[in-house]
């Protein structure tokens, strides 16, 4: 599935690549925030807590990349926009469920980190600018680190009774 629009990896330069990286983190941050809000609304506190934690991580990365961008390019205009990217590191909107367990929430994040890693791996093969290549390698390595972090968190969780989430539906109420 196409994850970008109008981005030519063969000609992308460092400024646009940094802007792209910032937007990828921003998209993931917002998605985790939406998930956390939704989980809170639907009485699923453990997953909400974890999604909020992930939101914080994405925010830190976003800030770091923004810093790099302004150090190197100041306020030079941005041509890469959010409309050009689709769920690169953001977990997909269809993933969460009411009363999902913390483990299921962590698995959603693991899936998101895995697809982000695959995205950077594919991008690395297409870029020609070496500074962009190094940036994408760095970002890919960070995704690998995140995967490890989430895997460790999953390993620490107590075993659980999966149950059937359909027993705990929480749909909106009728008017």
């Amino acid at each position: 599935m196409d994850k970008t629009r109008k981005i030519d990896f063969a000609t992308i330069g460092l400024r646009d690549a940094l802007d792209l990286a910032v937007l990828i983190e921003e998209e993931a941050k917002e998605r985790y925030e939406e998930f956390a809000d939704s989980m809170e609304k639907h009485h699923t506190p453990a997953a909400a807590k974890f999604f909020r934690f992930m939101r914080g991580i994405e925010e830190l990365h976003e800030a770091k990349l923004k810093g790099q961008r302004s150090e190197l390019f100041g306020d030079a205009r941005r041509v890469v926009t959010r409309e050009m990217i689709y769920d690169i590191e953001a977990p997909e909107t269809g993933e969460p469920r009411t009363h999902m367990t913390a483990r299921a929430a962590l698995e959603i994040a693991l899936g998101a980190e895995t697809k982000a890693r695959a995205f950077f791996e594919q991008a690395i093969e297409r870029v020609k600018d070496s500074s962009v290549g190094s940036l994408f390698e760095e970002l890919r390595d960070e995704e690998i680190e995140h995967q490890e972090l989430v895997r460790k968190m999953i390993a620490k969780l107590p075993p659980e009774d999966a149950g059937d989430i359909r027993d705990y539906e929480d749909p909106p109420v009728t008017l």
Partner: protein
Amino acid sequence: MKEPTVLPTYQAKDFKSELKPIWCPGCGDFGVLQAIYRALAAVGRAPHEIAFVSGIGCSSRIPGYTTAYGFNSVHGRALPIAQGIKLANPDLLVLVAGGDGDGFSIGGGHVPHAIRRNIDLTYIVMDNQIYGLTKGQLSPTSPKGLHTVTSDLGSLEEPVNPLLYTLAYGAGFVAQGTPADMAGLADIIEEAIRYPGFSLVNVQSPCVTFGEDDNQVKAHRAAMKPLSSIGHDPTNRIAAMDLAQQYGKALHTGVFFKNPSPPPTYDALVRERQRSLAEKAVPRERLLDMFVQK
């Protein structure tokens, strides 16, 4: 990367309201909403130039989650209200949203009239084959045999086919998408908005709570067949109708039909008539003369 000469005026986030969706976590409508934000950004009209009308249902909450003018109206009555808005203020971009129940059950009678009048509206139907908001009753698009709270032994009814139905009534633009391909869905919605006339986007938007397990986003991703990949010609209405018959059996995504020579819209005809009548109109200061016997 090639520098665009003009940067887009609006971004997807400009269309996102403060209201937080209360849909069940994982509901397909979340993805549809994201696609709508992106399509609106691409179209580039200001939020205050857009009116978004819906009926009642989970999916009908969509207007409230955008910064456009919104009217979460009456069950099944989104289309007539939207038609009125468009005729009263033709400069507005008018979008209509709702569920398959809202659009093809209680509101079904309005669809042919919106189509035959060819009012410039974009109708986005979140077709989840169930009544979501009222907790899982049979809907007009539910497949035959479906077990629901109102069809405990399995539905005996043939479903409505929204694609074939709207094509048969002469809609100039008919497309189908799924949140499993958000980029593709955003493109379809953008194209529908840009089409000058009535356009339908039927979105297979899964209901995670009352929908079937094999009709969720992951299953869509595996099953979807983009029409572009099978060489479909979207200017051919008969070919579109042929493919539309696969509704419920195959998940075709993309534009089924787009009229290559769109006829004038009703709003354009009304404006044209107003202009021609205005030429013959009596000036305001001579209005009373009409009632004075000479």
